[in-house]
């Protein structure tokens, strides 16, 4: 009987833990890629007129603006 | 809106009458499904007769998928949505028309399937009114959900797999209620079907209503 109990706990905790870890890993990877994309845009775009960047920066700054501050949850 | 609906339904049905794809392909598909069930569940007619209602409705559900795919395939191939969008017709009307045409074809199919079930499984047809009522309400709900998800899936490369995945879980209550209603009728106790018919009607009304509102936005996207 007890085998079932242990199996249940292991499966549940293991799955949640694994999922949580993969989320954090995916998030770090995505943050790294976005950082690279931003810096490559800045580097390559030092002489370019604003048009190419406006659609990207428009939505990006709208998205990024709410992120600052240590007290925010997200 | 209703005028556009009749227009679209008429067009779809006329295309079907001319091409007879429903008759030549969806119909045989449904018969094949019945036969395969027969093979799977064994030659014991008692088992099959007991399961008739459920098998009938599963066959109907699967046939709905084909009918919906066909409904969108007859618009200009992959530009289906563009064609409908540019036609200038009221989207709610288009939805009602297409769903209506699908429903009409399904009802004809169901008549054939009923005969098939009686013949192949030895189902004892009784409680005709309940059988028909369940078919009417159930089919309407199926056609509504199918047409709604169909417009989303149309024009996508993944449409053949996406549509069934979206459609089948949502219409599970229709399968359940219609099967139970039919079981009650076939068992000679049609009175017991009342509540299940209510479920079918509620489902149909709900999803036809949702469809008339949601079809427009879904049509515009993509």
């Amino acid at each position: 009987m007890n085998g079932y109990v242990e199996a249940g706990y292991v499966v549940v905790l293991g799955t949640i833990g694994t999922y949580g870890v993969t989320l954090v890993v995916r998030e770090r990877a995505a943050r790294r890629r976005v950082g690279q994309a931003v810096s490559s845009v800045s580097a390559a775009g030092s002489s370019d007129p604003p048009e190419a960047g406006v659609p990207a920066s428009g939505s990006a700054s709208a998205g990024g603006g709410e992120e600052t501050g240590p007290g925010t949850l997200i | 809106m209703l005028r556009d609906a009749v227009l679209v339904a008429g067009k779809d049905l006329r295309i079907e009458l001319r091409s007879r794809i429903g008759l030549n392909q969806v119909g045989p598909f449904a018969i094949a499904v019945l036969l395969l069930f027969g093979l799977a569940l064994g030659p014991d007619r008692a088992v099959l007769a007991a399961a008739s209602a459920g098998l009938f409705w599963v066959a109907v559900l699967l046939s709905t998928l084909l009918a919906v795919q066909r409904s969108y395939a007859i618009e200009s191939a992959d530009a289906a949505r563009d064609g409908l969008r540019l036609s200038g017709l009221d989207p709610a009307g288009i939805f009602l028309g297409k769903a209506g045409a699908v429903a009409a074809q399904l009802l004809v199919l169901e008549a054939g399937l009923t005969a098939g079930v009686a013949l192949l499984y030895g189902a004892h047809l009784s409680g005709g009114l309940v059988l028909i009522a369940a078919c009417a309400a159930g089919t309407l709900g199926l056609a509504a959900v199918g047409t709604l998800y169909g417009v989303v899936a149309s024009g996508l490369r993944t449409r053949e797999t996406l549509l069934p995945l979206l459609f089948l879980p949502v219409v599970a209550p229709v399968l359940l209620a219609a099967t139970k209603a039919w079981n009650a009728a076939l068992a000679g106790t049609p009175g017991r079907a009342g509540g299940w018919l209510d479920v079918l009607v509620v489902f149909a009304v709900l999803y036809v209503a949702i469809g008339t509102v949601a079809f427009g936005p879904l049509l515009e996207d993509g």
Partner: protein
Amino acid sequence: MSTPRFALPQGRSRALGVLGAAALVGVAATVWLGLFVTPPDQFMGNLVRLLYIHPPMAWVAFLAYGIASLASLLYLWPRTRAEHFDRLAGASAEVGVVFTGLTLVSGSIWGRPTWGAWWVWDPLLTTTALLFVLYLGYLALRRVPGEFHVRARRSAIGALIAFIDVPIVYFSVEWWRSLHQAPTVLDPTTHKTYVHGSMAWTLLLGFVSFTLVYIWLMAHRYRLGKLEDLEDTEGLGAALAERRAEGEAA
């Protein structure tokens, strides 16, 4: 333009860290209490310990579904339309599908020794199974390519079509089962055996802890979604800038 045009999301948010720690402590306490401190049940024996885990899984599964539906509704309503509601819906759905799967697995593991079968057509379990597939369909729909607003609106409508179905499914299945008198998870005889004393507190702790876990996972999934969207737009910007630089160099 050498300065970045926006600030990247904070790598570490203190509040999120606190939440994560609290969730971890809560779960650990639940496990410790559930496995070691609480007594075995009079009827179920040690199997009752699984009931500190399974109901919280189900609770989160349906909570996630509720939040995804609400967020979808808010996205569709013109006055409250905002990108974050779409991301919220998507995040909640992904976390929700994990918990829904776990509800089914934990229920199955509990059911096998209790009823002798890995699966029974219990109304709640059956509805949960259907919810699982509905979630998967919704997530598949979200992955269909398209511009943000198009994808978001389509997903929101898809969510409502699917999730409005859940009450209908539940009542249909419940009625279906009530006609047959078969074991159910909410069976009163199994229910009242564990609502006393330390068992009740442990169960409550379980609910609270896993809700915190859900919120933490959701927050991270939300951030991930935001980063992926930024990646798309910035990636496009980078590609455009490169083309432009090439054009100017030539």
